[in-house]
């Protein structure tokens, strides 16, 4: 019986192709927006949460204030310097502190030029261990060649990304290759397993000294990373470091040009920004869905008017009110769901496009589209519901028509 109704509904939709398509546009734009937003937002959230900051709860970072567009530490408006690092090192409750440089560079290999980043490892053993831990590039992560040793000069290690996903005109890097970094040939001595942190995975990892020489940055510090004494109160340590730095940099409270954050806080900041962006976009999508719903309602309403006679015939040959109601509900629900299905496909295509073009043009794998099954299923159920709800009133009107009145034209 239900399958029969489904067939009848499909029949009348396909007979009015153009109108069905036009009606569905509202729905599928809305659903496409929702799907691409959620999948991309989810992807970014995943990237940030799982991969970006493996700082751990016992570490803090110091960075310059301002909106960062590149990796943390690559902001060049205000500089943190060697002396700031010394202040952090001397601060109460800090056991180890180090600076990390993350600098954009030009790489040439196989006659192909690419812009990417170089990340540094400090020479001091404790500091080096901390950075390696945070970056997730430990000795056992080396899959080919060897680990970068303190004292190596024109040597670097790179992630498996450069092997699996050749970035130089289809040519991958192997141990022993020399890549020109801002003109200076640097040898690849090791390959490390993908860390999952997109910035690390795309960076050339070199020692600090040669990078400072090559890029001519004697004192600049990128991101300051510090380990807090075990068992210490994080917020208190943050306050201490802030106070010391304010004094050293000679700024008043509330006017800091630097920011001390714990791993958790950093995450929260990202999440908040992302949350606001997502909320705004979801709002837009919701409006679009509402408009789509009204579109369906309008179409179904006209359909009821247009098909009075058909409704009259159905009633004359034995269709009860609830049969007519069901028929029209299925029809409008189907219209919604079909729109939703197309919307999902469009949304998936759009987010994939964003993912691919972001990866290609920005060189970041931070933007990853995710399509959990509940997003797909949810969108389908939702669009069917929107359609059915929008069709409820017109369908109810159709079912209430008196057969004689419906038959008269």
């Amino acid at each position, binding site marked *: *019986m239900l399958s*029969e109704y489904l067939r*009848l509904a499909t*029949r*009348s939709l396909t*007979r009015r192709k153009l109108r069905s398509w036009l009606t569905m546009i509202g729905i599928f734009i809305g659903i496409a927006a929702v799907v691409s937003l959620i999948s991309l937002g989810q992807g970014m959230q995943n990237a940030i949460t799982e991969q970006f900051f493996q700082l751990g709860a016992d570490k803090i970072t110091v960075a310059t204030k301002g909106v960062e567009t590149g990796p943390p530490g690559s902001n060049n408006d205000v500089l943190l310097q060697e002396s700031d690092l010394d202040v952090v090192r001397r601060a109460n409750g800090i056991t180890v502190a180090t600076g990390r440089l993350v600098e954009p560079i030009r790489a040439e290999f196989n006659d192909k030029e690419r812009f990417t980043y170089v990340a540094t490892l400090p020479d001091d053993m404790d500091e080096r261990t901390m950075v390696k831990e945070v970056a997730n590039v430990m000795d056992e992560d080396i899959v080919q060649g060897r680990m970068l040793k303190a004292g190596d000069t024109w040597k670097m290690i790179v992630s498996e990304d450069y092997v699996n996903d050749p970035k130089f005109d289809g040519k991958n890097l192997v141990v022993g290759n020399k890549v020109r970094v801002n003109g200076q040939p640097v040898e690849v001595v090791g390959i490390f397993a993908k860390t999952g942190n997109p910035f690390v995975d795309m960076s050339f990892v070199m020692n600090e000294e040669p990078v400072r020489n090559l890029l001519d940055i004697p004192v600049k510090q990128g991101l300051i990373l510090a380990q807090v004494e075990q068992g210490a109160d994080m917020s208190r340590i943050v306050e201490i470091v802030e106070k010391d730095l304010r004094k050293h940099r000679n700024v008043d409270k509330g006017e800091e040009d630097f920011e001390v954050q714990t791993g958790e806080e950093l995450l929260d900041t990202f999440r908040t920004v992302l949350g606001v962006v997502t909320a705004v976009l979801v709002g837009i999508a919701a409006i679009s869905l509402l408009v789509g719903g009204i579109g369906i309602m309008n179409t179904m309403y006209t359909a009821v008017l247009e098909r009075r*006679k*058909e409704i*009259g*015939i*159905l*009633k*004359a*040959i*034995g*269709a*009860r*009110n*609830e*049969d007519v109601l069901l028929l029209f509900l299925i029809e409008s629900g189907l219209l919604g769901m079909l729109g939703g299905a197309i919307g999902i496909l469009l949304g998936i295509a759009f987010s994939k496009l964003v993912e691919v073009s972001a990866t290609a043009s920005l060189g970041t794998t931070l933007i990853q589209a995710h399509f959990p099954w509940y997003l797909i299923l949810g969108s389908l159920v939702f669009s069917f519901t929107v359609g059915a709800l929008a069709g409820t009133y017109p369908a109810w009107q159709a079912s209430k028509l*008196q*057969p*004689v009145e419906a*038959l008269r034209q």
Partner: protein
Amino acid sequence: MKKAKTIIKLKDVWKTYTMGENQVHALRGLDLEVQEGEFLSIMGPSGSGKSTAMNMIGCLDIPSKGQVYLEGTNIADLSESDLAQIRGQKIGFIFQKFNLINTLTAKENIMLPMIFQGYTEQERHDQAEKLLKLVDLGERMDHRPNELSGGQQQRVAIARALAVDPSVILADEPTGNLDSKTGGSVMDFLKKLHKEKGTTIVMVSHDQHVAKHADRMEFLRDGQIVKKIK
């Protein structure tokens, strides 16, 4: 001869339409009985209330005043759903304007009433094919109404009316839109149905020649039965 049983009875039925200030009485105290197995024709000039009466008989409309009994039950006591169910089960309509559903093929049109009566898919197919052959349209099963001639469409409509084996066929000017030759063959078919299967038929017509085919004729004028012929 067995005693005739009354299937449908209209008792002092009024139908009044209010048009602004004016009241139009389409029916004014109509009394009519339809006996099981008879072929009744209702005649009358245009506007005399024939179609209105037919809609009452077929429970498509409810009287402004008076009662309609279907096999002894006052239809006012029935819910709309019950009424639709009964209509679907016991009454087959043939309309002047065919009233087929244009998005469906001939066969699907015939299968439609069976859907609402819960026939199985197989039963629907078998019955529809049987009926299409009966009305001589075996070759036209998958044609849409707009791909059929008027006579062919009316035959599809007849087949649809017969789909659920109704005890009564109501035909409102079944030949009104047909030329005399195709009209004649439609009439022959109805007569055959009446004779061979004993189906009760009520037919509306304003054409003396068509109406003559019936066993009994009622004459309607200004919403009332005026005199009996035959």
